[in-house]
């Protein structure tokens, strides 16, 4: 375990972040975009945990932040999906391009 430095973990999280970014850029489907956002949030979580683990091993703040991020991610996902489904029902499409004229 000690042979893995924090940089390596950060590599993973950064890569994951940009993978999420890529998805966000290329996908036009709201659900897939939501998935990409989840990836981004997760990369952040990895960072929190890694920092907590390697830099402040005595504290728990990173852990708490992670938990709260997960909580917020869940709430966000729930609301986002409710919106997506609502949008689908009124527009019959969940493509962002189609929904751009959305007023409310």
């Amino acid at each position, binding site marked *: 375990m000690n042979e893995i*430095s924090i940089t390596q973990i*950060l590599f993973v999280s950064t890569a994951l972040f940009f*993978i999420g970014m890529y998805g966000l850029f290329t996908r036009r489907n709201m659900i897939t975009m939501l998935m990409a956002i989840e990836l981004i949030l997760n990369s952040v979580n990895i960072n929190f945990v890694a920092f907590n683990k390697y830099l402040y091993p005595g504290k728990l703040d990173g852990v*708490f932040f992670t*938990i709260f991020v*997960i*909580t917020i991610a869940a709430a966000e*996902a729930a609301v986002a999906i409710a919106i997506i489904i609502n949008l689908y029902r009124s527009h019959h499409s969940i493509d962002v391009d189609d929904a751009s004229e959305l007023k409310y």
Partner: protein
Amino acid sequence: MNASVIIFYLISAFILTAGILAVTTRKIFRSAIWLLFSLIGIAALYFWMQMEFIAAVQIIVYVGGIVVLIIFSIFLTQKSGDEMPKPLKSRTIFATLAVVFGFAFTYNLISEYGFTSLNAQPLEVKVSDIGTQMLSTTEHGFVLPFEVVSILLLAAMIGCIVIAIKVKQQEK
């Protein structure tokens, strides 16, 4: 090179491959499944970092909740068997370039920065510690966020319901 390192590389490779597949597959259901694997991989990473509690939370919330919800919404909103349209060429190229440069830049920054790794033996994160700190009302306690979370959840729930039921009025 010991077992732990190998496992770390395996997990990382798994996370990244699954992540890449999740954003590139054109079948939306498979995309959700890859996302799921990526998330499970992240949970495994937490396990590897001996943050079992976070790992379990990750699995419960993401795998048991969010992904199931995403899958349901996939069924609800589209033909899950159809391939999604290919993203525009220009957009793909732009996205790839942006992402590669961004990544290179960020990673460069990270590796330049010398993290002062405290070599204190990492503590085992006990659930009871989390609990005590969460409930404590002292300066480092998290009781306020804890209660605020409940309000956040309440708000989210009401939001969902309002949004979902809004259609009801529209239809009438």
